[in-house]
């Protein structure tokens, strides 16, 4: 009997390992393949750029520098976390929408509006107590992002307007809104170029190392909150059900339209907080051309993390590490390898992820999870228009 129990326990463990591998295989393989492509790119660039002896070990030197810049010591690790923070929040904004079957390309616009909302309140409260200024500025960022997420959700619910189209348009509008606000009402008098005042006391305090600000904790709290919402609450069940099978959800008495509006608004909250942590934690002010690619990188993060909150944390840390390590890589290779190599790596990872059917066939992977549900969402939302 006891041996039988042990084998059944072993079998369960083996089953668990299989399940985990099935889940992480594609992301891990995509990362490895992207790093290999990076090696090829570096070697090719050596051939193209004249005046240097060809060095076969350069890719490895570059990767070592990248790794050291991201993980070797407290400051590099803090930098990694700091770069990962907005990506975690943005990744959640995209991933949550994926769970409801929505492709939120608008994370970038929601991010920008969140940044604008928090800088507006932050500047207004820059001499108030931090205990008031910080929560108020974060809240303003969350609400501004929520508003920017609500619009496409609402449009989809009432008219079926596709979120891919509306969020892309709203991204452009967000850029214009910021340019107007920063060069108009928020412009600090006397500055040569449009720029807002500093957020002062609303700035997120540094809690670790030289520049590890409070935003990391905001991101951790958001991960826990989203995980709890999705998997422990009835609301999350509704979101997942609407994403997985809207017809069955409707029969079960759920209201897909309402869920769409709620989910897009919540996604806006997360992306808005992402923008808020950048403004309040890193830049402390905004320029008229304030822009990062956080909102777009978040899509890659959500895909790499399979839309799961935990997966998103790992994916964001990876991308954050590449951002944090890139400057050291550039320095140590005497600028032979520019920091932009990490953009190539990121894009290549994404490419392999999306091409998962090809990878599965080439590597003869069986039993690996059929695909990323999120890429199926992309295919579905791009391909066929429907929500009646």
């Amino acid at each position: 009997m006891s041996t039988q129990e042990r084998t059944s326990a072993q079998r369960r463990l083996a089953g668990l390992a299989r399940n985990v591998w099935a889940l992480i295989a594609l992301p891990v393989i995509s990362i490895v393949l992207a790093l290999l492509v990076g090696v090829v790119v570096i070697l090719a660039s050596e051939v193209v750029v004249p005046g240097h002896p060809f060095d076969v070990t350069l890719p490895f030197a570059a990767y070592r520098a990248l790794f050291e810049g991201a993980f070797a010591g407290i400051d590099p690790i803090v930098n990694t976390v700091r770069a990962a923070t907005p990506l975690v929040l943005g990744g959640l904004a995209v991933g949550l929408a994926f769970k409801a079957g929505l492709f939120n390309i608008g994370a970038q616009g929601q991010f920008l509006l969140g940044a604008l909302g928090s800088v507006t309140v932050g500047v207004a409260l820059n001499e108030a107590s931090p205990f008031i200024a910080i929560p108020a500025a974060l809240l303003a960022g969350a609400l501004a992002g929520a508003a920017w997420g609500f619009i496409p959700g609402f449009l989809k619910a009432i008219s079926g307007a596709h979120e891919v189209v509306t969020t892309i348009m709203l991204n452009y509008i967000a850029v214009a809104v910021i340019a107007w606000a920063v060069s108009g009402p928020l412009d600090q008098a006397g500055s040569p170029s449009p720029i807002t005042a500093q957020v002062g006391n609303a700035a997120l305090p540094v809690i670790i190392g030289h520049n590890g600000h409070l935003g990391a904790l905001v991101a951790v709290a958001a991960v826990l909150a989203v995980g709890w919402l999705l998997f422990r609450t009835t609301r999350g069940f509704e979101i997942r059900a609407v994403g997985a099978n809207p017809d069955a959800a409707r029969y079960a008495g759920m209201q897909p339209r309402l869920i769409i509006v709620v989910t897009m608004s919540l996604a806006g909250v997360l992306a808005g907080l992402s923008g808020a942590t950048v403004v309040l934690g890193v830049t402390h002010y905004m320029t008229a051309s304030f822009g990062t690619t956080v909102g777009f990188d978040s899509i890659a993060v959500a895909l790499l993390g399979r839309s799961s909150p935990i997966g998103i944390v790992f994916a964001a840390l990876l991308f954050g590490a590449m951002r944090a390590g890139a400057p050291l890589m550039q320095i140590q290779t005497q600028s032979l390898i520019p920091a932009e190599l990490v953009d190539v790596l990121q894009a290549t990872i994404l490419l392999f992820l999306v091409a998962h059917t090809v990878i599965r066939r080439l590597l003869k992977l069986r039993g690996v999870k059929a695909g990323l549900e999120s890429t199926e969402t992309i295919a579905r939302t791009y391909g066929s228009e429907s929500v009646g």
Partner: protein
Amino acid sequence: MTSDVQNVQAPALEMRGITKRYPGVLANDAIDLDVRPGEVHALLGENGAGKTTLMNILYGLAVPDAGEILLDGKPVEIASPHDAIEHRISMVHQHFMLVPVLSVSENILLGEEPMSGPIFVDRSGAHRRIRELGKSFGWEIDPDQRVGALSVGWQQRVEILKALYRNARVLVLDEPTAVLTPQETKEIFAVLRKLRSEGYAIIFISHKLYEVLEIADRITVIRRGKVVGSREPAATNEQDLAEMMVGREVNLTVDRGDSAPGDVVLSVDELRVKDDRGSEVVQGMDLEVRAGEILGVAGVAGNGQDELVEAIVGLRRPSSGRIRLDNDDVTHAGPRQRHRLGVGFVPADRHRFGLVLTFPLTDNFILTDYYEPPYARGIVRNEAAIDERAIRGIRDFDVRTPSARVTAGTLSGGNQQKVIVAREFDGEQRLLVLDQPTRGLDVGSIEFIHRQAIAKRDAGTAILLVSAELDEVLELSDRIAVVFRGRIVAIRDGRTADKNEIGILMATGGSEASSAPSSPAA
């Protein structure tokens, strides 16, 4: 048939000792199967018995843990559908593998495009060949027709042509008749007989006993992954085969007993409903279902049954008319409100309305009650109560599953349907709407679901049964309503109804005089 001659011939295909284990189940346990040229070999078994796994192995979609496949006596390796096609093995799947937006010829050529040069597809040559192939069966095939615009029966013919176009000689048909009307079934059988006479080796998968007896030269029955026996049709009968399949005695007809109808539970007045394209497909229906009776709705598919059912359960808004449940007007109530008033629903399309296939069984068991205690406290899910619910449902309804945590999509059709039935039959239902409740199921599951329905009726539930299988309606119904073009053209007593008369009413709608609903004949 000419089995003496065939016995002499060597098998075209042999599968030896095929074993396949999935986590928690032994799907195939040392299965031997062979098929000779010019033979239809039927593979019979319940859902989940391992038929599909075996065929997936043959077609290179799954890798066996043990066993070998021989073609003309030579072992072959089939690692992918591509290999299978190379070895001239073709499969017509139950769910067609066609691209609806492409034309007939594009579907047939897909992956095998004949080139007239380095760049261009040899369209006209291909079209000619397809037309000729079709003609050999007496089919007028238009290669440019979009597949999505074809009827199900014609789509199946395209699948068969696709197989023949690729020079298949071993043809596997996975439940080819599940989606066909009786007329189309006859036609497909004629095709199979012709293919057999031309020397094709055909594996015919089904769980419809009378079909297997009609078409097969040999019948092999598998149960729980094992071959339980082979028979020649002349040496067996439906009862014998059913018992081999299920492993115990089965009653092919349920003893429905007497009904004791009570008060009217569901009443539908002058109901008009439009379909998705906006045409009125339910054109003024009246019907009543009483507590403790089964009202069967008989009709050829597409005469407004789907829309009627959707309107009754709250998934579709009627354009006019009234629906009452006991004394409540529920015409404009949503599905949840009706569910709370005691309406259960077994949908015809279980993958669409019945289940979330990517969710575990646990979540599917609480799909309609997830927001209520004990499954939720406030907005927080109570996992313990949810698990308990699933375990109870799995036990009471004999759902064959390795665990409650596997996703619904991994179960066989019969077991998926049992999950839905377990969910919808639970509790004190006032009304159960059963839309094609046994479509695509095996005898064991059909018997089980029929018994459950009778038990519910005897407990005082009103049951509305919609089915395209006239036999099912006749077998279960206390009263039968015949629908034709969106109207109820006749109501008959279930016990005394004449099958021929109902069949004619289904096909023609009867005379104009009977277009107004009449009271039961008895």
